[in-house]
């Protein structure tokens, strides 16, 4: 068997990898034309490479993605954890009293502000239970919830073109409730029962309530027509969706 110069073994591989320069290619061609063993070697490698290309790809099972996501510890990079790390020194025991006092003060101001805000904005008699439209109200769904540190229930009721969500939830940590609705549905009003530390934000097709602790509140919506429509409810904590439910209204 003829000897193949190591330098040309490298050039042959570079040729297979399509990274050979024109100069190198020229040298290789000259070498190959003059060396039968090198030619066989080169053709053999090309053929093996070609065979590799013919191998079909396997597809993973459909639930692999789900399995991967479920096996991840989603709380690992929660904003709360990061915050505690970076502000760690400020949480020294010596500041405990001052922080408790400040937190109480802020909480008081927020609750006071919300009560004022509530009395200004709520213009329906009672969404939670015996509002005027509640005569003939149907319970569409009762959703008991228990996951993470959140527990409670959501009742969904309707009467004519109105429907509302009664939420009775409790959680140690902050969580978001997002209700998304399609065109033809309008958010009408928000009613606080027992609620504190609550933040409300509203987009064109969703309303988001951020809160923690024991919460009771209701959200009233109206529809343009009695056509069936679907409203989505999601509960999130630290940006992770913990619960989602699509509710058909006017089935």
């Amino acid at each position, binding site marked *: 068997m003829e000897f193949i110069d190591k330098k040309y*073994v*490298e050039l042959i*591989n570079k040729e*297979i*990898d399509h*990274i050979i320069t024109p100069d190198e290619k020229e040298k290789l061609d000259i070498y190959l034309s003059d060396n039968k063993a090198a030619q066989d*070697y080169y053709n*053999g*490698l090309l*053929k*093996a*490479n070609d*065979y*590799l*290309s*013919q*191998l*079909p*790809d*396997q*597809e*993973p*099972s459909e639930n*692999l*993605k789900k*399995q*991967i*996501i479920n*096996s*991840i*510890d*989603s709380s*690992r*990079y*929660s*904003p*709360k*954890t*990061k915050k505690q790390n970076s502000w760690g020194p400020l949480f020294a025991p010596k500041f405990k009293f001052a922080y408790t006092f400040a937190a109480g003060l802020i909480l008081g101001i927020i609750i006071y502000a919300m009560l004022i805000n509530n009395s200004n904005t709520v213009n329906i008699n009672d969404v939670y239970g015996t509002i005027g439209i509640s005569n003939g109200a149907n319970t569409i769904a009762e959703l008991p919830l228990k996951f993470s540190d959140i527990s409670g229930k959501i009742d969904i009721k309707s009467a004519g073109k109105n429907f509302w969500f009664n939420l009775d939830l409790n959680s140690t940590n902050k969580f978001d409730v997002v209700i998304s609705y399609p065109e033809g549905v309008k958010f009408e009003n928000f009613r606080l029962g027992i609620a504190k530390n609550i933040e409300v934000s509203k987009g064109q097709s969703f309303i988001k309530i951020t809160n923690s602790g024991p919460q009771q509140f209701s959200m009233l919506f109206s529809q343009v027509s009695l056509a069936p429509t679907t409203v989505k409810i999601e509960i999130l904590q*630290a*940006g*992770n*969706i913990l619960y989602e439910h699509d509710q058909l209204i006017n089935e």
Partner: protein
Amino acid sequence: MNDDDKILVKECLKGNKKSFEEIVEKYYKTIFRLSFRITRDYDNAEEITQIAFVKAYENLESYNSKYKFFSWIYRMTVNEAINFSKRNDRNQRIDEKYSTDERNPDKIFEKVELKGKVQEAVMELDLLYRLPVVLKHLFDYSYQELSYILDVPEKTVKSRLFTGRQLLKDILIKKEFN
């Protein structure tokens, strides 16, 4: 593309799990294919894929953005495949010798004799040579990228890749003659 990955990683580190889901969506099929090429076992390939993602997520803070994210995650996959192969090497050899391959989803493909031989030939390569051959062929990586993924110097990558190809050619020739 690469910048997108970096943004997704940053978002993950802020606690946005959805971003990691996007990463999984983007790469899980490729990682599975790589794992399957290395192990030639469907179940093992799925397990390796899953472990690689979990480890990637757990070590996200140590990801160095000077490298491409997919190179980083392929590196994890390769490491996991190596660990897996070491653990299962003995069993796999016995399985392959006596297995009827009834559970193997690769069955249809195996019926095509040539392709079956190619797969067998790849598996006959020592892992040391199989890894650069498979990675180069699947992803057409540069020697430098392979060096990072395999965690060996570029010179070693070249040497193993060239030897791997040569061995594969020799095995295939032998199989054709038989």
